[in-house]
């Protein structure tokens, strides 16, 4: 990273983060966050990866109040 040594008083236009740099983060974090949302919102509801209904029951109130279809 190239740091500019010259302090600017007024913030200049922000340089965008290049897509090439962002892509691996988008993939990794994106998938991780969607898995998290799935666990909170839909696991042991519409589909199930784990057996039983403990996750469903544990997340029950959160699902209803966060707007997910629950049961």
């Amino acid at each position, binding site marked *: 990273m190239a740091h500019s040594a010259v302090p600017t008083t007024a913030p200049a236009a922000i*340089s965008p983060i290049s897509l090439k740099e*962002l892509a691996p*983060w988008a993939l990794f974090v994106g998938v991780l*966050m969607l898995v998290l949302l799935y666990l909170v919102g839909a696991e042991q509801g519409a589909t199930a990866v784990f057996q039983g209904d403990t996750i469903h029951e544990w997340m029950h*109130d959160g699902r209803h*109040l966060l*707007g997910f*279809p629950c049961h």
Partner: protein
Amino acid sequence: MNQISPRVLLIRGMLAGLAAGVAAFLVAYLLGESKVDAAIAIEEAGAHDHGDEMAPVSRALQATAGLGTGTLLYGVAIGGIAALVFCYALGRVGRFGPRATALLVSGGLFLTVNLVPFLKYPSNPPAVGDPDTVVQRTTLFVLMIALSVLLAAGALILGRRLAPGLGNWNASIVASLAFVAAIGLAYALLPGINEVPKGFPAALVWEFRITTLTIQVALWATFGLAFGYLAERALVPGATAKKAVQPTG
């Protein structure tokens, strides 16, 4: 303005998301739980109760630790995704600074991920909703969110294309109208769901739905403000240096 790694912004996004999750939990606990309890009371008084099946998680746990887990994880996940969108939007949406960009991203995501899907497939309290249709309802809900996000992205691209010819203001109006028309079409074509049992109090459904919307507003507002603050400190070195370095002479 120096170049920044997405890692810094993503971590801060998840932290701001955690704070947003706390805000969501507080609103959900203080305003939402009474409605959940009221709906469960009606459910249990009704004809088709669940019988005497063992509840693996007690109501007291569901309403506290369970609700806390759900809202905090949801906040972190939403924060991570919103930070990704922010990483893309930063410097690409005109001359907005980090804080304004964070608020724009929060508002835009609230609109597309929550409000637009909510108007077609609103939240429901316990006792509303047939367990046999949960797969269909979940699929339609996710589909509606995906459609809303895709159509919003399409509208943004359309606005961008039209801006040189029409000017920013008019291009934004045309793009917004195109979004509204496309969403209206999606609303009309997708099947409706109404599984409110006969005799279930309409006021309770209304209050529950408004409460869930309030939870989302609290979540996104907290995220937008907290992340804007954290992102600005990461992106604008002067914002912290001004406080950290006191003139000694």
